[in-house]
């Protein structure tokens, strides 16, 4: 619980914060909108009193109503972990500016968030699937991709036969069926 960090954040990022700076045991949490990502991250990284130089994690979250992107940062100036929640991304078209301008390592983390949720990171030079096969059509960690007890019959299974052992095989004379393209812009 670093109170000085809370004061510093409220002073420096007052215009960007949505809601109060919350603190819980050893974590400090701020919420921002997608439009403020670039300024906030740059301020956190460059400000001499903050210097959050270590990106610990970049995660996507699907709350069921909205999507979020959550950054966890670490600085030598504070004993707390800082959590930056980018809130309010729509579930239909979630777009966030990429953090690769500050941390090159965010590239793969953003690829993973895209792969699992479909969140588009604008500015990421390499936004393609990283964990699922390249022709997979669903975003597995979304809440509308549900796992019934027998996951093989999940509605979000991929286009390849090995991913849908219960589904009928692709019919040869239907050229458009079977292999659908992922909705990537």
């Amino acid at each position, binding site marked *: 619980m670093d109170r000085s960090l809370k004061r510093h954040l409220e002073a420096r990022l007052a215009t960007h914060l949505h809601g109060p700076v919350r603190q819980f045991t050893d974590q400090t949490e701020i919420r921002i909108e997608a439009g403020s990502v670039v300024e906030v991250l740059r301020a956190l990284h460059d400000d001499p009193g903050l210097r959050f130089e270590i990106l610990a994690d970049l995660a996507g979250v699907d*709350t*069921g*109503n909205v999507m979020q992107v959550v950054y966890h940062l670490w600085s030598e100036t504070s004993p707390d972990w800082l959590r930056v929640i980018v809130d309010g991304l729509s579930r239909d078209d979630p777009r966030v500016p990429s953090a690769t301008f500050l941390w090159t390592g965010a590239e793969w983390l953003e690829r993973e968030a895209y792969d699992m949720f479909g969140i588009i990171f604008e500015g990421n030079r390499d936004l393609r699937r990283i964990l*699922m*096969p390249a022709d997979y059509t669903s975003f*597995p960690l979304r*809440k*509308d*991709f*549900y*796992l*019934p*007890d*027998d*996951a*093989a019959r*999940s509605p*979000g*299974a*991929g286009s*390849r*036969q*090995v*991913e849908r*052992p*219960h*589904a*009928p*095989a*692709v*019919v*040869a004379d239907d050229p458009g069926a079977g292999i659908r393209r992922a909705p990537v812009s």
Partner: protein
Amino acid sequence: MAVGDRGRRGAKAQADRQVVPAAPAHLARPIVVPNTFWTPTNPLAYEGGRPGEITHLHEFGETDAGRNDDARWGGLDVIPTKADYVLDLIRANSLWPLLSGLACCAFEMMSGATSKNDMDRWGMFPFRASPRQSDVLIVAGTLTTKMAGPLLRLWEQMPEPKWCVALGDCTVSGGRYKRSYSTVQGIDRIMPVDVYIPGCPPRPEGLIYGMLQLGQIVKDRRGHWAEREIGPSVPDKI
């Protein structure tokens, strides 16, 4: 806030399972599985659902395609079958595995190959890097749908006679990843398996026991290589 069927536990459908009776141990009869479950991408596979005419690799070997295929023993008709009788005794003591460790079970496989539990005692130490030089494909570790293609290609590249060992729960039946969207629920859905070694991970002693059983299978089936099953060997309705 939660969307979807989060609260649903989902009772497992207790479908009545008709298990195909196990073939006698000394001879591997092909299990002809009516194609209700595994539907390959090729819609004409398995004759579009009807049982195929060729059920034995033996018969395939009698066609011209089978005769000319360089990777198959059955290219020459009679002599390898008789020679196999003796050669299989030799092969059983010198089964060279392919280094195909995918996940955690690979470490138990390596532990089984190193000093404390030494598989070299039975001639299995050389883990070949190339499928062209190996006899046994020990699939150790979870098989995902992305890896299924490369693994099947490895299996096809192995020259006959070849055997397959499913090491660990994930390869036997999907294991702890039974509910996952991206794992193959047991490798017998895509390739014929000879020995199943359960465990998560199985102890190296278990792996050695399984490999000795494989040696026994090789000896028991000697001379009858052509009658083995090809293709997925998962039992009906599983």
